[in-house]
């Protein structure tokens, strides 16, 4: 007989593990958002939200971009925009492209391997859901 589990409050609210997992992939997500070309801070936030459902506090993205810039993974440039005020654009450096490529390869291998392991968990869980 399949074991059933009572709903856990940890499932309903993001716990520490989940927050740390997301934090761990934040650098990759920001670098990946710049893969197709330069973007400014607010655009990066919108791309992350649109393409990956990652919603960052607005004050979070700029210190991360600043650190990536001083790490040499992105470079920045002020550009006079049509909006009437300048914007600070970020673009990947060669080192940044190499870093995000390696990260993407690692992530894909890791998630594929883990997927094999957790597929039965989700499948059995779905079968137990009341109809």
């Amino acid at each position, binding site marked *: 007989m399949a074991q059933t589990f009572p709903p856990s409050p940890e499932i309903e609210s993001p716990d520490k593990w989940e927050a740390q997992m*997301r934090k761990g992939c934040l650098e990759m997500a920001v670098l990946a958002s710049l893969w197709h070309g330069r973007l400014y801070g607010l655009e990066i936030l919108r791309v992350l939200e649109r393409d990956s459902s990652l*919603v960052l506090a607005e004050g979070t993205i700029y210190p991360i971009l600043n650190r990536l810039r001083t790490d040499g993974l992105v470079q920045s440039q002020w550009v006079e925009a049509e909006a009437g*005020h300048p914007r600070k654009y970020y673009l990947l450096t060669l080192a940044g492209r190499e870093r995000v490529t390696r990260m993407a390869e690692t992530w894909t291998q890791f998630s594929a391997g883990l997927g094999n392991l957790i597929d039965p968990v989700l499948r059995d869980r779905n079968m137990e859901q009341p109809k």
Partner: protein
Amino acid sequence: MTSESQANDYLARLHAALTGMTVSEREDIVEEIRMHIRERLSDPQCSLDSVLAGLGPADELAQQYRTGLLVQRAQNSRSPFVILRAALRWATTGIEGFIVFTIALIGYATGVCFLLLALMKPFFPANAGLWVGPDQFAFNFRMGATMTNPNPPVHEVLGWWLIPVCLVIGSLSLVLTTKLIQFLFRRFRWKLPFAAATPTRPAMMAL
């Protein structure tokens, strides 16, 4: 307070809190945040209060910049002071940081003690030494009982060799502590507080 003066006040507090950076770095950061506020306010449905709430308090925003810079400097620095400062900042965020800071403190204190013992040997040759006896094996500085008159049967065994031995052990302690803490910074970088964030709105994947 008008919207403009409220925004200027926020930016002035941010500028003041960005300590430890060059003037051009500070101005670049403040200018970027100023343009962010202006860009967001170009949406008529967006209020200044909501934009500033999204950015978080100026002090906390500056702290994220400072922490990122501090940790990065610590990763590339050989200065125990820079590394200890970064470890101390990490220690304020949780138990892991506290453990790392404690390791750094013990490692550096050990190194400094050995170096001090080596420096004291020429001035106090009878007091500084490696003292051996029943239940005792210790590098230290002994007052009272001396090399020529130890509490029997405790005696000093290294003589002048204490200086090179302590110099080597002290230097190794400093270098290995630095390497270990820098390794921990790289290893657990994603746990460091510069990525800490507060969700601005409810969302499944809010960070």
